[in-house]
């Protein structure tokens, strides 16, 4: 019995990590964009496009890796297009993103029907799923090995991407410029930093990451494309970035948490009689809760500071002299 639950737990962890991967990839892209001061709400659409292109190209070319590369290039190109429209014509990024999300949803459905005559989902036996990797060193470590070993390269890439992005943002010259542009664009520009270049870079990279996340869905995790395959993961990714303060490492763990919520929802359906619709709500519900937390976080912080201040005022040993150290104003 004990052994049985262990296996279940490992399975849950494994599928959590897998399901977290697309969210993490897109969330890292979102965090990068937020850092550069360009809101990227098109992650959802770019992810869906990535999922579709990866499997379609894999089918026609007969090579899954090429499918993934093409998907990422398309995501990057879309990012480039966004940057161009934004900088050149000052198009509102939010409106652009909403339009793109809707467009891609319809386009993928359309092409699925035109190319393969399918409406809901499509697959073909000739398509190869991205193979899982066995890492010899990891494999032999008892518990850790079971948790960390045996995923495909996209999963490992998402871990690497989190660390790399952290390093870039906080330890390289370019990353510092990204953060400066995002926080005070004028300050960056007056010292000669090219804010357009920085923002274009962020949009391109985030497009590529989101598309890669999408590719993971269609050829990494499953080998199938379904209508609206991204299913809100792009939006969840944005939440993850926000909750992680746009910090790559914190964003990574928030994404991981959402992945577990996903996995948990799947598991619940298998082991209980809970209506599937209700179980599928779980990830969305967690997203909502986290969003509310994001909104409340600041308020709560202020409230706690105030509470602390008031108790400190009431405590008798605080002499007015001690308490009135000059608090520098916000001027």
């Amino acid at each position, binding site marked *: 019995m004990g052994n049985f639950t262990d296996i279940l737990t490992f399975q849950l962890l494994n599928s959590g990590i897998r399901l977290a991967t697309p969210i993490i990839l897109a969330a890292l892209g979102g965090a990068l964009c937020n850092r550069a001061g360009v809101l990227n709400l098109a992650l959802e659409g770019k992810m869906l496009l990535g999922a579709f292109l990866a499997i379609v190209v894999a089918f026609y070319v007969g090579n899954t890796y090429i499918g993934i590369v093409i998907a990422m290039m398309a995501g990057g190109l879309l990012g480039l297009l966004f940057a161009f429209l934004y900088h050149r014509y000052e198009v509102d990024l939010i409106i652009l993103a909403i339009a793109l999300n809707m467009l891609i949803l319809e386009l993928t459905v359309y092409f699925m029907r035109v190319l393969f005559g399918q409406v809901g989902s499509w697959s073909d036996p000739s398509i190869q799923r991205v193979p899982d990797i066995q890492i010899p060193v990891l494999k032999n470590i008892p518990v850790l090995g079971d948790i960390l070993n045996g995923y495909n390269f996209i999963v490992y890439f998402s871990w690497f991407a989190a660390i790399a992005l952290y390093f870039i943002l906080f330890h390289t010259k370019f990353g510092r410029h990204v953060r400066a542009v995002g926080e005070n664009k004028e*300050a*960056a520009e007056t010292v000669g930093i090219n804010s357009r270049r920085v923002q274009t870079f962020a949009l391109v990279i985030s497009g590529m990451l989101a598309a890669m996340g999408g590719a993971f869905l269609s050829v990494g995790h499953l080998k199938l494309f379904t209508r609206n395959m991204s299913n809100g993961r792009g939006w969840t990714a944005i939440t993850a970035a926000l909750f992680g303060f746009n910090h790559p490492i914190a964003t990574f763990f928030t994404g991981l948490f959402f992945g577990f919520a996903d996995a948990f929802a799947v598991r619940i359906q298998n082991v209980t009689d809970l209506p599937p619709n209700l179980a599928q709500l779980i990830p969305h519900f967690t997203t909502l809760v986290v969003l509310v937390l994001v909104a409340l976080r600041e308020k709560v912080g202020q409230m706690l500071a105030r509470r602390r201040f008031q108790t400190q*005022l009431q405590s008798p040993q605080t002499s007015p002299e001690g*308490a009135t*150290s*000059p608090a520098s*104003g916000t001027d």
Partner: protein
Amino acid sequence: MALALEMKGITKYFPSSDVLANNNVDFTVEAGEVHALVGENGAGKTTLMNILYGLVKPDSGEIFLDGNKVSIGHPDDAIRLGIGMVHQHFKLVPSFTVAQNIMLGIEPSTFGVLRQRDENEAVARLAEQYGLPVDPTAHVRDLPVGMQQRVEILKVLQREAKILILDEPTAVLTPQEVGELIRIVRNLSKLGYTIIFITHKLVEVMHVADRVSVMRGGRMMGTKKVSDTSIPELARMMVGREVILQLEKPEARPGEVVFEAKDVTVASASGVPAVLNLSLQVREGEILGVAGVSGNGQTELVEAIAGMRPLDGGKLYFLGKEINRLDVYQRRHLGMAHIPEDRIQVGLNLEANLDENLIVSRYKLPRFNRMGFLLRRAIRDFSASIIEKFSIAGARPGGSIATLSGGNMQKVVVGRELSGNPKFIIANQPTRGLDVGSIEFVHQTLLDARAEGAGILLVSVELDEIMSLSDRIVVLYRGQIQGELDAATATEEEIGILMAGGTLQETARSMKAAAS
């Protein structure tokens, strides 16, 4: 002396606001001098400097550095040519440290990887070299304004600028900090730097500059040696008429209490008490001046009274009614007005146009609104009247507000707050960044409001302003009232002692000592 800079026939027209900001301007600066540039709000000083720094492209004109013609199309060019600018509104990244801000764009790195230790050391060395101590690892958002400015100056020096442009560097500083800045500037000039110093305060011109150029309405009116000119002459050149530097102030006739604060306590952003058990009253027809070194709770007190910050103790009364629970809109609706110290962040919404800025918190009045629809015509007329009354240069009804000059933005705020007969006015640094003529005008408007029976709480770090306008003066020190003085008899010395945390007894003693 050799000319460090020569600008010839500079002309710049802004079609969007239909303003000829620079009209065939000639401007020359000698190497190693401190050259003051003065002029009314909207005279074109910032525009001229932005052209020199490559932020604005002139329609025509030439620029020579050390006798060589140069073309400056971008701040990069200016930096490369040794020109540095400290902007009227600072351009710093708040979450970055001092060192990160100073080295922004020129970070020491190996293959793109930052060498953060080198960076801090370089800044420490730089600070020492110029005698401008800073903590390289402090976050800029935690620094007082004077320190932030020092960071801006170091930023320019680090880029090896030879010509430094300081655009209204003293507008946001306390008198102490101004003294310090003047010392720094004189010292830099001794080290061979050429400095262009924009200011509205002619006293500062006399202290800091070797020569001074005056602009008016986009034209260059002339350049004088400071030793050959006087404040009244400069004022006349700036405004084009005699400026009355002495105000006419009728006897106060205080009436009922309009506003009262009782035992008010307010926490600052960091949680420590910024205002502690403070009580004060303002009567109809009087001006209560609040003096003090900035950072002693003025900001928090004003924000609490205006309704922007919750109280942590005590009560506020307006016309005898408790207003603790009322929000900003409700307080304003009752007849409170507020000229905030920060016009960009608090006073205005730069994304909205002039009309919208002028009718905030008034758009529901029947005058501007019929059954939920705004009356465009009435609003236009209203903003036209304010533009005219406050002579806001470069503004037109429905026009942009972000392109106004700093001083003219301030006039928009003052105009909005003082129209509509408020019963109680909180004026926090109401003349920051204004030219002499406009200061005179704002002061007169405040006195008129007082004559009509408004109660005014005037918060200012300018002692002159406090002393010439107030009827009573309280001095704020560490969030408490250190003492109250009658404005008619108060001396600058007395206020100074209170501002430094001394007591009235000490004041009396020092007076006696001075007398004997």
